[in-house]
């Protein structure tokens, strides 16, 4: 496969998930400090719905990635950068699954079921346990912070490749100029 870009599906999933994760992340950060109010409860529900959506998309995305290899990196890219890129990509794929999962487990342990879009009740994987809920909250926060840091690094690296190295790396994932998708 000599395509120079990711498939349209992969590009679509990448940017859609970026928007959803950024949205879910900012709701998550702001909702925890709100005084108890209908707004707070709405934010919590939206945050969970976004998380479930991210989780489902992450599964689809990983399946797609496993069956559709990534386009080659620029030949000029040093080995350490290739390794760093591979590692950060791997971590992000892991975290887009682990972050929603940790939130779901936290919610279960806190004794609040998740009802997707207010319609589909998700099974509670854990029974209510205050101590466990507290630990899972920390885990959820830590995983999010890690994901945010890697995403930031990922973005900065992409910008550096585009404007400093000028190696056309960003074009692999940039929407538009659709090419034929490999079957």
């Amino acid at each position, binding site marked *: 496969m000599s395509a120079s870009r990711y498939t349209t599906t992969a590009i679509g999933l990448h940017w859609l998930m970026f928007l959803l994760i950024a949205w879910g992340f900012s709701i998550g950060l702001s909702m925890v400090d709100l005084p*108890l*109010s*209908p707004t707070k*409860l*709405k934010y*919590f*529900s939206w945050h969970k719905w976004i998380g479930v959506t991210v989780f489902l998309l992450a599964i689809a995305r990983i399946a797609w990635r496993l069956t559709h290899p990534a386009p080659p990196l620029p030949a000029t890219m040093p080995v350490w950068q290739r390794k760093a890129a591979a590692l950060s990509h791997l971590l992000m794929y892991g975290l887009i699954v682990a972050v929603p999962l940790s939130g779901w487990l936290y919610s279960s342990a*806190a*004794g*609040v*079921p*998740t*009802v997707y879009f*207010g*319609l589909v009740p998700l099974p509670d994987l854990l029974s*209510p346990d*205050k101590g466990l809920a507290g630990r899972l909250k920390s885990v959820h926060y830590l995983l999010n912070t890690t994901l945010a840091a890697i995403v930031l690094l990922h973005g900065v690296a992409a910008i550096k490749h585009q404007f400093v190295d000028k190696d056309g790396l960003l074009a692999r994932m940039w929407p538009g100029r659709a090419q034929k998708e490999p079957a």
Partner: protein
Amino acid sequence: MKRCITALLMAAASFGVAGQTLDPAKSAITAVSRQMNVPVEGKFTKFTGQIAFDPSKPDAGKAEFTIDTASFSIGNAEIDDEAKGKNWFDVKNFPQARFMSTAVKAAGPGRFEVTGPLTIKGKTNTVTIPFTVKADGGAAVYEGVFPIKRLAFNIGEGVWKDTDTVADEVQVRFRLVMTGGKPAAVPGKKQSP
């Protein structure tokens, strides 16, 4: 405690029968509300009450219950505090919710209905509560579930009047285990006057 005892004595006196007494450890009164369509169960852990009921003579049945609203808990400190506050149960001004039966009737095989005023937060509405009763050893176990509209009792004022977030309908579920005295759940045995 004194209040509980007084309530019990008054209840017993008003029935004029040697009814059974509530076993609080085995009994439960819970309220399931829905926030953003997520069922949230809260428990009342302190309540007292009396039931004088003979399934063969349901019309003569009587029941009275008093619930300490401050004993409500869903197991989340932030929400429990809010629930006790002015907008919800306002436990300082309305420490107790009360139900007193005015009529009991049969509603099918093994099923009954009790009607009477339910007072929560100073608001009284007449409710009809379906229930079943079965004997469990020497105890009589009364179980049932009925819906109430929280706004009819001013529960959830201010911003909480919004029913999109917390639904108006709340399911109240109870399991009341009455022990001692005459095993009321056994048909044919008459309550002594």
